[in-house]
């Protein structure tokens, strides 16, 4: 069960490796999630067409594209959240560490592939209980373990110093940016191997956005990050790789630099230069 990523995650006291050590271009990245010919349907509407993609371990992968292009749908397929919706169907192959994602128990998938949503969704509980929730539903009862994990997760989410004196206050007392970082901390508490973020900054001001971006940049040493964003500058700033979606198809997927500076497809160029539509 202990994959390399999870080992890194538990050695939290280690300083993060210098960024040149894991340079995305030079090193041969390990494939964490692999989709092959993935189709997805809402009823009779096909939302994803033949998506094939390798998502590299310990990298930030960004998906951009206009609204309704399927990028969020694809994100939600990767932790099987779409299964909660009625009348949906998925075809094709999706592998996590080369293991068929659809043969893994769905609650295990969601523990291993965490998710942060567009609108922060803290539970109506205290800050502490929000972060502890994932541990508790996964059967961890020991108080000392939970307390340690809560502190560690809040520190990783760069929220600890702001909330350490009010852990037992309701989470709704936090600001919007703090709430979103709380949701990230909550997702990190179960030590996911992959963290999916669905437009996590779309409701935040620039300062809160910057904080989250810095945070994600540091987190990629611990986990694989996939982020959906409408903000192209954000993708350019953050991501190692960027994929462009249009009308349910993955048009182009490459190094972020290449996508923004020298895309090979006309549609990508139109979109990143703002000529789209």
């Amino acid at each position, binding site marked *: 069960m202990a994959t390399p990523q999870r080992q890194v995650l538990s050695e939290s006291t280690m300083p993060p490796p210098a960024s040149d050590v894991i340079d995305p271009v030079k090193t041969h990245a390990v494939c964490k999630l692999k989709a092959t010919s993935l189709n997805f349907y809402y009823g009779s509407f096909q939302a994803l067409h033949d998506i094939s993609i390798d998502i590299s371990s310990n990298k930030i992968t960004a998906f951009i594209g206009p609204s309704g292009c399927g990028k969020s749908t694809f994100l939600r397929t990767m*932790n099987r*959240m779409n299964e*909660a919706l*009625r009348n949906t169907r998925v075809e094709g192959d999706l592998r996590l560490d080369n293991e068929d994602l659809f043969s893994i128990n769905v*609650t*295990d998938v*969601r*523990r291993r592939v*965490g*998710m942060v*949503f567009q*609108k922060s*969704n*803290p*539970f*109506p*509980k205290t800050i502490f209980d929000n972060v502890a*929730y*994932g541990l*508790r*539903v*996964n059967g961890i009862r020991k108080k000392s373990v939970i307390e340690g994990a809560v502190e560690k997760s809040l520190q990783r989410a760069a929220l600890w110093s702001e909330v350490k004196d009010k852990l037992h206050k*309701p989470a*709704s*007392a936090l600001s919007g940016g703090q709430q979103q970082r709380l*949701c990230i901390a*909550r*997702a990190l508490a*179960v030590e996911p191997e992959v963290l999916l973020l669905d437009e996590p900054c779309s409701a935040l001001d620039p300062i809160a956005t910057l904080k989250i971006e810095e945070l994600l940049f540091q987190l990629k040493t611990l986990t694989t990050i996939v982020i959906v964003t409408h903000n192209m500058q954000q993708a350019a700033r953050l991501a190692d790789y960027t994929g462009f979606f249009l009308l349910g198809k993955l048009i182009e997927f490459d190094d972020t630099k290449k996508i923004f500076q020298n895309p090979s497809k006309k549609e990508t160029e139109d979109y990143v230069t703002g000529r789209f539509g």
Partner: protein
Amino acid sequence: MMMEISARRRVTNAVMLSLSGICTLLVIGVLFFILGYLLWEGARSLNLDFFTKLPKPSGETGGGMANAIVGSGKVLLIATLIGVPIGFLAGVFLAEYSGKMFAFTLRYTVDLLNGVPSIVVGIVAYALVVRPMGHFSALAGGVALGIMMIPIAVRTTEEFLRSVPNSMREGAMALGATKAKTIFTVVVPAAISGLLSGMMLNLARVAGETAPLLFTALGNMFWSHGWLQPIATLPVMIYNYALAPDEDLHQQAWAAGFVLLALVLVINITARLIIARGAAGLRR
């Protein structure tokens, strides 16, 4: 011509306004008359004996309704234990699990059940409990009121659970919680103040029911021990005493009506306070 139309409009407007105004006053007037009369007659007839003494045999004056107050409490407790869990769990199913068609059918059925006259519910409890047991009992009365609580319990639960944003459910499921865990550790706690107050209002609604108790709980002039004996309740006491020829008993009926009203009012206000506090908690 223009002048004529606008004059006619002005008159119509004035007539309609005064008509609806008068009707509103009438409604408020009737309501305050009932409340005031009950307060006046009830409070006047109320004394300490009412809460502490048993009813006196007919012909004697004085006495109280201590047994009926406790009896109402016991019958309502049974009703809550029956109506709330059944209604709550069915409501959870309706809001969280059932498909559209089945939900529609279930909701329609529940609304029909809500419209069943209380006397009919009483007959059902009579057939289900009183006949097999061979005698009237607190249990039978509780079953009757419990059945009456189910529809509102179902719909209240459904409504308050549906008002919990879906993002909460997704957040919990994204952390590896199963559907049942999500419902009972996130969705229900998020709706708890609404659920609690809804159940209290439901209880207040059946607290005054008389017809289904007449031939289930029956009544009792003495203390009723345990749950399987006929038991006195406030509404049935009011009914019996109001029909009696004795002026003293009429006064006691007024007092009982006053106590019942106060009880319902207290439950109502508590429920509203819980709602208000829950709303404030969400805003914080």
